[in-house]
Structures are given as C-alpha cells and as structure tokens.
C-alpha cells in the first residue's frame, strides 16, 4: 500500500501443503535495495528460485551500471523474466513496492504469472486471500497516509483478510519503507 512518500508491504509467513501447515517462518518479501521491496506469493519453489535469480541479476546490474536500480526498472525486469517463461511459467504473483526518484514518490506494481504489469496508485494484493484483502484495503485505504498510520492500516487489513482465509496466517510480517529506511515488525496472528 502507498502512503505519503512511503510504502508498506505486508505478508503472512505460512508455508503449507494443501491443508497441512509445514512451516511458520517462510519469508516471501525481499529487499532489492534501499528503494525497492519485492514480495511474491504462489509456488514456494518458484519463489526461492526467483529470489536467487533476481539477487544475481541485481548484483550484475550494480556492477555494470555502478548505481542502484530504480523500482520501475526492476518491475520491468521482473515482467520480462516472467514472460521469458511464457509457455512454462513460474507459478507466482509478484508485488513490487518502492520509492521512485529524487522526491521519493511511491511506486507500486503487481504482475500476473506471465508478466502483465499493473501500476495502481493505492494498493496491490496477491495470494490465496486476495479477494478478502482487496475488500478490506478498498475500505480502509486513504490517500497521503503518514508512515505510522500506513503501518496501522496495512496491519489491520492483513489481519482481517487472513482470518477469513483458511490457507493464510500462522505469523505475519510488515515492512514500511520510507526515505529514512525500512522498519520491519512482526504481528501476532491467529495460529489456527
């Protein structure tokens, strides 16, 4: 979700196989650089593979370009990587959130599993509980929220949506990205 010169990404930390919960600490939100956060949902093996793949690509970018990648360029990179597997796709739904440019304008991007990009101004959702999330975010979102308020709203949206989805929960993490850095907090969620 986007606020005033800040963005927040939140996700749950459950790893499950059909109905069984296997792990409670699977992190799916990764920091690309100080300006970009990248989250994925979907098939766990593809999440792990793409995490390594993008880490490699970003390291190479930093060495060749001698600068940090901007969120918009990274989003296009993600889309291109996903489309390269058009006929045997990665089963993930990525979300990119970052702060763009000198004046730290919030940038959000969501793509589908083969890289169709969307740049909404308010919030993006993904995962098994995305329909519930969409509803709650739509209700609670306001423009130009300060980081503290943004954190509250994002946390409450995630908790509410996750409590209505059988396959989500068992721990959650919220990252708030401002020009001063990233704050990470863990929320106490339901463990049933």
């Amino acid at each position, binding site marked *: 979700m986007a606020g005033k010169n800040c963005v927040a990404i939140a996700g749950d930390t459950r790893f*499950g196989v059909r*109905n*069984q*919960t296997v792990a409670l600490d699977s992190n799916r939100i990764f920091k690309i650089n100080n300006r970009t956060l990248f989250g994925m949902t979907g098939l766990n093996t593809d999440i792990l593979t793409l995490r390594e793949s993008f880490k490699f690509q970003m390291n190479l970018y930093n060495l060749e370009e001698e600068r940090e990648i901007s969120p918009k360029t990274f989003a296009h990179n993600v889309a291109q990587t996903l489309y390269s597997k058009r006929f045997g796709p990665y089963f993930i739904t990525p979300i990119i959130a970052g702060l763009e440019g000198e004046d730290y304008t919030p940038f959000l991007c969501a793509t589908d599993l083969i890289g169709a990009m969307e740049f909404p101004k308010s919030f993006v959702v993904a995962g*098994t*509980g995305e329909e*519930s999330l969409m509803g709650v975010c739509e209700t609670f979102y306001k423009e130009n929220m300060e980081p503290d308020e943004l954190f509250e709203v994002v946390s409450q949206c995630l908790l509410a949506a996750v*409590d*209505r*989805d*059988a*396959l989500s929960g068992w721990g959650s993490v919220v990252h708030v990205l401002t020009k001063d850095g990233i704050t990470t907090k863990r929320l*106490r*969620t*339901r*463990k*049933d």
Partner: protein
Amino acid sequence: MFTLGSVLDNDFKSTIEDFSFETEFSTNQLMLPNIEKPFEFAQSIIGLEKDLQENENQLMFHQQKKEERKERALIKGYKGTTTLAFIYEKGTVVAVDSRATSGQYIASQSVQKVVPVNEYMLGTLAGGAADCQFFLAHLGRICNLYELRNNEKISVAAASKLLNNILYSYRNYGLSVGSMICGYDTRGPQLYYIDSDGSRLKNSLFSVGSGSPFAYGVLDAGYRWDLSKEEALDLGRRAICAATFKDSYSGGTVKVYHIDENGWVKISDDDASELWYRYEEKEKKKK
C-alpha cells in the same frame, strides 16, 4: 432403467417400516423432487468432492465434465473440521473445533458442532452441516418418544443403531454425515461412530474430519483408560488445539464436553489461537 441404489431403497424401505416402531415419525417420507429419476438428480446437484469422484461411473451424466457438474452443484459442502471423542474410566469426553470452510474461504468461526440428543447423549457434526443437524435432531425426537413409551432411557447402542438404519436407507443419496454418538448409559460410557455410507463402529476413541490425523497423533499418545477427569479434558483440548494449528480447515474455538452418569456438561469454550499461544508460553516456562 433400474440402478442398484433404487432397488436397495425399495427393499429397505419396507423392512425398515416393518421393524421401526416410529413409523409415523420416520424420515422415510422425506420428499423427493417430482421428476422422472429423483435419485440421479439428487446426486447431480451435490458439489462434495468425495461424491463427485465416487459417482463418476454410476451416473448417466458421466459424459459431463466434473468441473461443469461442480459448477452446477447447488449444495455446496461446508467441509473442514476436527471432532474427537473418547471414553475412559469416569465417562466420555467430546471435543470439537468451530470452523466451517467453503473451499478456502472461512465461512464461519462459530459453528456448533455438538448437538445434544438428550440429557446424557451428544452427537457430533462432521461433513454436511444441514444433514448432521437434521438427523441428530431427529434422533433426539426418536429417543424422547422411546423414553415416553417404554419408561426407560434408551441405550446409546440402540440410539446409534436407529440412526444407522435411517442413514443406510438414504445411502447413495449424497448425504454426508460423519457423526459420533457419545453417551453414558447402564453399560457405562459408550461411543459409536456413524457414517452416511452406513457404517456403525464402536471403539474407545474416534476423531473425525480433515484435522483428524493431527488430532489422533496427540490423542493416541496420551490416551489411557485410567485417566483422571482433569487429564482427560486436557487431552481432548490439546488434541483439538493441535489439529487447529496444523490443519488449515480447522480452527475457531475449542469446545470440550464431558458426559458421566449425571448427564453431559459443557466444560470449556476457548479460542483456538489463544489456547495455542498459552500452551507455547507454558512450554517456554518449563524450560
């Protein structure tokens, strides 16, 4: 075209009417839709995964794809549950969760999965909620009438047998009932598992539902005949809590009941997640 199911139905309906002493109140008069082949129609509108697979070969609609049939399904099964019951020296313990899911959407966190049959018998609900609720309430009516007519309390074995016979007569109609009849009678604590397929099993412990494998793990490890009342209640509670933690389709609140010679009593009603956090803290303190 005669199908095996309808032949059995005709035979069984006549024998059940002969031997049942509740004819005017029996459910054999449940209405069927006024169409040519009501039996097949009843199956075609069920959306339960188990029935779709089982009846794949039997139906004349087998040319249709399973997905199409599932979309046409008007009766959406609310599945996902964990219920358990066990008998021990001092009585019967029944513990249930309270979540109902429709696919992965949590439809409710506050479902009553224990239905009282009479003051000393409880039935649990698993599978189709409407089916279980109706048939358990009907069983309650029958047991009440038996008591009035015969001036003695009905035994758990007899009550479960009555329910079993009724459900067998509706076999293959797409009912989904996985109920446990738990009680205390002159023979001591009793526990029967009744299925909509027609099974009736007697044992000292059962767990039913999507979370039952996880509950069995805790239950089997801690079960003994000579548990104290506190230990037995705690065992039931822990087993359901473990199932709600591990199984995504179980959760909500954990309700524990106890049945002894004085009847059934609701012991506790705890939020499943809070209970888990409490157990975690206790473990940490021990270390």
